[in-house]
């Protein structure tokens, strides 16, 4: 019991929780933007992989870190554009397109990585983002070192939550995004270009996901490994349901998830060899399923989610 308390009271635990949560925050937020516009994006797993690879590769090739982030975001937006064109004007299955996009983006990332770096014995490293203490705020007790001594990409994730929440709820653009996800016919009748808004939302969302992927190679680690996204994209989709499609709750969900993950890693060290390590590794996936079970019944889906819209048909 003491050890558990010790874990929960340590600053490093809370700092780790936010660090682990960061890619999930970005991924969840990206998926949320897509789904608010009515488009399920199962390409998320592949887009995160592509973002991780592209951002890292850009830096490895000599670009600076923020350029790397921009490259990742751009790749994400291009992949999002493909998803958008297939699912919005063409009205193809969002499920199958998304899975296809995941397969495409993943294999393209691996293929590119292997073509550029054919024979490397161990994954090459880059100089990744370093923690940046925010003046004054980091001096706050406990919260300071936990929240305000993170890498810049974590701050980016936190700011992104605020920006997305503001845009969704306070601006005409956000109203347009929500309306095409609720009732595209209503949006069209008010002069909104449903296709443009939906494709745009999917592109922006996909860009956010890709930056979430880039966090893994440019902030959490400093190298690219195959299969390093490891289902985080799917977890983000579960978190969107858990968050009831609200940015604030998405932040909360991702953070709880990060805390749980950080906790199980530390618990593993305490409990040690009594329990196979695979059990601990399973927990995040099982927890995601549990979150879905708890929330699915009361979830208020965007009404037009997964329903293709054809202009002029009502």
């Amino acid at each position, binding site marked *: 019991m003491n050890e558990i308390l010790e874990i929960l009271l340590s600053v490093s635990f809370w700092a780790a929780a936010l660090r682990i949560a960061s890619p999930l925050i970005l991924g969840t937020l990206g998926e949320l933007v897509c789904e608010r516009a009515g488009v399920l994006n199962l390409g998320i797993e592949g887009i995160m992989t592509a973002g991780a690879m592209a951002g890292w590769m850009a830096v490895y090739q000599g670009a600076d870190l923020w350029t790397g982030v921009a490259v990742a975001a751009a790749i994400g937006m291009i992949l999002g554009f493909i998803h958008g064109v297939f699912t919005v004007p063409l009205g193809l299955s969002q499920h199958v397109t998304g899975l296809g996009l995941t397969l495409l983006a993943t294999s393209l990332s691996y293929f590119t990585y292997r073509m550029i770096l054919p024979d490397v014995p161990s994954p090459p490293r880059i100089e990744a983002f370093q923690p940046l203490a925010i003046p004054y705020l980091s001096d706050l007790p406990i919260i300071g070192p936990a929240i305000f001594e993170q890498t810049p990409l974590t701050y980016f994730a936190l700011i992104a939550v605020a920006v997305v929440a503001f845009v969704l709820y306070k*601006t*005409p*653009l956000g109203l347009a995004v*929500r*309306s095409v996800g*609720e009732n595209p016919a209503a949006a069209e009748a008010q002069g*909104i270009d449903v296709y443009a808004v939906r494709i745009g939302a999917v592109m922006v969302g996909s860009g956010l996901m890709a930056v979430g992927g880039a966090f893994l190679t440019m902030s959490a680690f400093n190298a690219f490994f195959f299969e390093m996204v490891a289902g985080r994209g799917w977890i983000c989709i579960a978190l969107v349901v858990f968050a009831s499609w609200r940015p604030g709750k998405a932040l909360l969900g991702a953070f709880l998830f990060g805390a749980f993950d950080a906790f199980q890693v530390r618990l593993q060290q305490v409990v040690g060899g009594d329990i196979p390590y695979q059990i601990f590794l399973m927990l995040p996936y099982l927890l995601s399923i549990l979150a879905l079970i708890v929330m699915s019944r009361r979830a208020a889906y965007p009404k037009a989610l997964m329903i293709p819209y054809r202009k002029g048909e009502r």
Partner: protein
Amino acid sequence: MNESVNRKPEDLVLRLRGITKQFGDLVANDAIDLDLARGEILALLGENGAGKTTLMNILFGHYVADAGEAHVADASGTLAPLRGGSPNASLLAGIGMVHQHFTLAENLSALDNIILGTDSLFRPWQRQRDARRKLAALMDRSGLLVDLDATVATLSVGERQRIEILKALYRDARILILDEPTAVLTPQESESLFATLRRLASDGLSVVFISHKLAEVLAISDRVTVLRGGQVVANVAAAGTDGPRLAEIMVGRPIPPTVRQPMAPGEAVLELAEVHVPGEHNRPALTDANLKVRRHEIIGIAGVSGNGQAALSNLICGLAAHDHGRFEIFGRTAVVGSPGRMIAAGVGRIPEDRLHDGIVNGMVVWENLLLEDYNRAKFVRAGFLRHGAARANARQVIEAFDVRCPGPEAATHLLSGGNIQKLILGRVLNREPGLILANQPTRGLDIGAVTYVHSRLLEARGAGAGVILISEDLDELLTLSDRIAVLYRGRLSPAMATEDVTIRRLGLMMAGQTSEGAAADAA
């Protein structure tokens, strides 16, 4: 027959010339000319399928016309060409449209629905305060009162329609198009809508009122344009014409009146006693419903949609279960909550949403005709479908119910609404059910199909079936029903003999008055 209606060109707010639109082989609009003056209420009359909705969808930019041109007056009153195919262009030109099926996002507030798309998308924030001020003034002037902060899902049909009109007014519409606006209203609500429209017209708003109901067309409009088969067949001043004359122009041929022969009812096929069906989302379900349906009898159920029709229909269709009360079919306690058991018990069900519940999109005609019968011995051998027998069955139904289609292998979803309904009728009536539930069986059908459905229902009644007819069309109810009951907020009134009922009395009951009160008020 075009009576020349003389008006100065500077009064025109809308001028259509030669509008033509073709879907496949169907010419929906054939060289249509139409003028609309400032402050005028023009009724666009025509039966379902005559091309009214297509024309308005072209005007509103949902469709692009194949030929023809449209001019709309700008703010200064000069006619300018309208760019086709863009709802936004139409909105900017001052055209507002209230669709038959409302285009409101249910999970957004009334205010959000109204201001949606009125600001530039990239404006950094919304001008909510200005919007509220403007809307308060609009509501004051037009009498269209709405709680702006309410979520649309919680509002009644009438309130939603007011939001739709406010949407147009908020955008300073000079032309307001209403597509079948009274279909979902009680007669009294329609009256109040007409009053509002007249007030707005006297303020200079031009109104196009689309309908197929003669009486209300004559009551509201200054001028009537009649469409038939995609063409303008008449353009007359409302004051100079009358109902029978318009009816003949609209249909183009004499319609044999549907006549219900009086019949002695037989034994009861359905009995509800104090039946309660739990509702969803706090919507009215069914409370303490009492109803008896006998053989050789059609019971009409009137009511504004959303007052418990779904619960009643779902109960009898087997989709919902009651939590207390007695529900008997053919004298035996009904097994509820299973559509299969209802079918097996001898209930024929014609669903409200025929495309969603009635047919499987993507299955061909013979498969759709087999949906309720695929487990019957004559179509199955050891778990395998007998395709030959199934196709033969399909050919027989297609023939017997006059389903116009290339054959049993035709794709069902490409058939016209009327033929899809005939297909469903064939599937249901072929089983010779003793109890039939027909939920909005003629909604959206053209007059030929409507007459056909009516005759088939009367035929089934003659053959000994008891029929429950749920409809929003009061004329239909009065024509077909032996008795009529009204649903209001989940409460079912006692069934009244049709001879004792007037439209006015039904309207009052649909608005919540008790049958005695309504009878007294209507007298």
